[in-house]
């Protein structure tokens, strides 16, 4: 699954650590999601969407 997390994070001027703090996860998790190594659960995806004020499909897109 592709995502625009890195771009959105940069637009907000947040580091990975800043985003990790806001999501209450580790920076390792944020990095894994950004690089596509890990697809977040629905609750975490909703949390991200709420944080960036976007819909989930504006952040994540199926790579098929």
């Amino acid at each position, binding site marked *: 699954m592709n995502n625009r997390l890195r771009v959105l994070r*940069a637009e907000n001027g947040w*580091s*990975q*650590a800043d985003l990790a703090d806001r999501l*209450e*996860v*580790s*920076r*390792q*998790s944020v*990095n*894994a*999601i950004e690089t596509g*190594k*890990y697809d*977040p*659960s629905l609750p*975490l995806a909703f949390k991200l969407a709420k944080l960036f004020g976007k819909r989930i499909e504006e952040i994540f897109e199926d790579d098929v």
Partner: protein
Amino acid sequence: MLSPVARKFRKTSLSVLASYFVLFPAADYLAQRIHPAGTKLWLLAGVPLLPLLIVFVLMGYYLRDEKDEYKRDLMVRCLLWGTGAGVLANLFFGYMRVFGWKGQLFPFTEFFVFMLAVLAAKFSYRAADRVPADE
């Protein structure tokens, strides 16, 4: 960095595992003295298992309480590697015996295989997931 839940799990499980080094020699000493049989033997053999049983329960609590789902996922993957390796080692030596092998395994071989596989998986994931400097 460890999450608070992971820190608690590590601290508690290490303390519990330390008791193994008291329980096992004590059970072994008792076994040498009283030469238990039947139910007594079963009970005595179960004594050193208690700390390991508690650590597995603690692991369950850790998996339940860890909020970082990625870390939880990594832990589950490591445990699966360990379980798979332990089961395969057990089956392999089982087949060796079925096919006529008369040798004897080093005690707790399967457990060591489990632990080694968990640690190998943990370090492999850590190496593969090296987090670059923050931007």
